[in-house]
């Protein structure tokens, strides 16, 4: 497939699977992202507003994580329920174009939630460069969690399992670890475990750019995020089930 056609293909997948559902069902977005915003609200109310920056860092991490993991549930649905992936496999669309198209469609669908959070960041006095840095972190975390979502979707025997597995992973990645709170509050024995998680590193970076100070060396955080995204993408490309065995 020529590059021009590949771009058309990517655009079509993004447009019909991401943009169209967002425009037709805007009220669906708050439902999908209710959990991160609920936690943000609880933290805001319970702390009398003091913990709002932590809530923002947490919500940014959780929304991005969910966006990535939703790619897995979407792919499982398209493959198992709609059989759309069968249509795609027997067409000139490459696996990479398809995966990237579906991932971008999810990012487009979740863009309003991210915009609200960036707006809240700005209202808390975050500079433009801080917001741009946060966007970079969002992209790295999105790549990482998309790869995780894709990996598990490939092995999900049915869509119900895919939803349950991805819900569980979302909790493990973005509720339990220091995402809505500082890593300094964790018992020391749990710190190394938390530091392995890309969401901990992403939230630490968000907390830093929001002005809460870096609880982990930012170079280390970027390094872990970058390494996680590269390793997981490679893993996915090796393990990706395009033509079935």
């Amino acid at each position, binding site marked *: 497939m020529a590059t021009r056609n590949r771009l058309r293909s990517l655009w079509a997948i993004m447009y019909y699977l991401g943009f169209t559902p967002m425009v037709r069902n805007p009220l669906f977005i708050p439902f999908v992202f209710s959990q991160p915003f609920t936690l943000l609200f609880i933290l805001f109310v319970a702390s009398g507003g003091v913990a709002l920056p932590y809530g923002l860092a947490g919500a940014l991490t959780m929304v991005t994580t969910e966006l990535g993991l939703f790619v897995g549930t979407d792919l499982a649905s398209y493959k198992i329920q*709609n*059989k759309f992936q069968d249509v795609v496999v027997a067409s000139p669309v490459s696996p990479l174009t398809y995966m990237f198209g579906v991932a971008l469609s999810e990012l487009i669908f979740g863009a309003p939630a991210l915009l609200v959070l960036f707006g809240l960041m700005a209202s808390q006095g975050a500079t433009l460069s801080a917001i741009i840095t946060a966007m970079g972190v969002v992209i790295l975390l999105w790549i990482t969690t998309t790869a995780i979502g894709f990996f598990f979707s490939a092995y999900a025997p049915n869509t119900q399992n895919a939803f349950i597995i991805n819900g569980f992973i979302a909790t493990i990645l973005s509720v339990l670890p220091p995402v809505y709170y500082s890593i300094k509050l964790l018992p020391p024995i749990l710190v190394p475990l938390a530091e392995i998680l890309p969401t901990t590193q992403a939230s630490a970076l968000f907390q830093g750019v929001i002005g809460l100070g870096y609880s982990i060396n930012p170079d280390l955080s970027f390094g872990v995020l970058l390494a996680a995204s590269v390793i997981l993408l490679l893993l996915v490309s090796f393990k990706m089930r395009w033509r079935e065995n």
Partner: protein
Amino acid sequence: MIALKATDLTKVYKHSRRPALDGLNLEIEGGQIFTLLGRNGAGKTTFLRIASTQLMPTSGSVTVLGLDAVKQAKELRERIAITPQEAETIYPLTARDHVMLSLRMRGMDKPTAVKRTAQAIEALELGEVADMNTDWLSGGLKQRVIVAMAIATDAEMIFLDEPSIGLDPLNRRRVWEQLTRLKQEGRTIVLTTHYMDEAEALSDRLVIISRGKLVAQGTPQSVKASFTNRSARVDVYSRFAEKELEPYGRVVEIAGRFRVLTDADGAKNLGEDAVARGASIAIGPVSLDDVFVDIVGEAEKGEEEYGDPE
């Protein structure tokens, strides 16, 4: 010109007790409608999925449009399209969105895609519902949307796995018309179906597969003609026990009555016997349905019955 050639094609699924395809050999002429018939689990879908590059064979080979379906899958995918079995539409897309998505993701430019989408929608009489969310459509309309996604493409070979499932007789004929039109354009159509009238009306050639093996092939007429010793069917409504009918031919029980598949003399003799007994019977030529039941029944006689994924 041979458009598809399968040689010793075998597929054994990981957790299966028997091969889904067992050394299948077949050839499909280009520009024809070719139908695969077989019971559930016979291997039809497995064959379609291997030939359309979705599934790896265990052994053997398939060449489609001169390209090896395993080694040259990338090139082949530019030239084929499929309608999967029991596919579902995507929420909240409309019928038009589905067809546009199918064409645009194949790299088609927008004006051509818009034109071809409109043609496919008109051809399958989806005009009134073209811009409605497909979740609101009936099962038959959704199935037509799924078929439209494949027939709107410019693929040289189209694989359709039970394309008319869930369609009423009028809409089935609408799909048949479109498949015939595609054939007239020189494209090759490979389909599976459980409707014998569909196979008979549409197919230039057909094969019957049983337990992953080819048990009959030819044109619908030649497959029926090969059934020379059972060219007639006699439906017996009363006054005969099954044992009394067995000397006349193969007896099949259908919904409380017996159908006897026999030759012309057998039908004549049974007719006379029925008149003597005052029994109600109906005599007619065998249908493809009868041939299918007989051939598959014969092929599977004595074999253990168990389900496996297609």
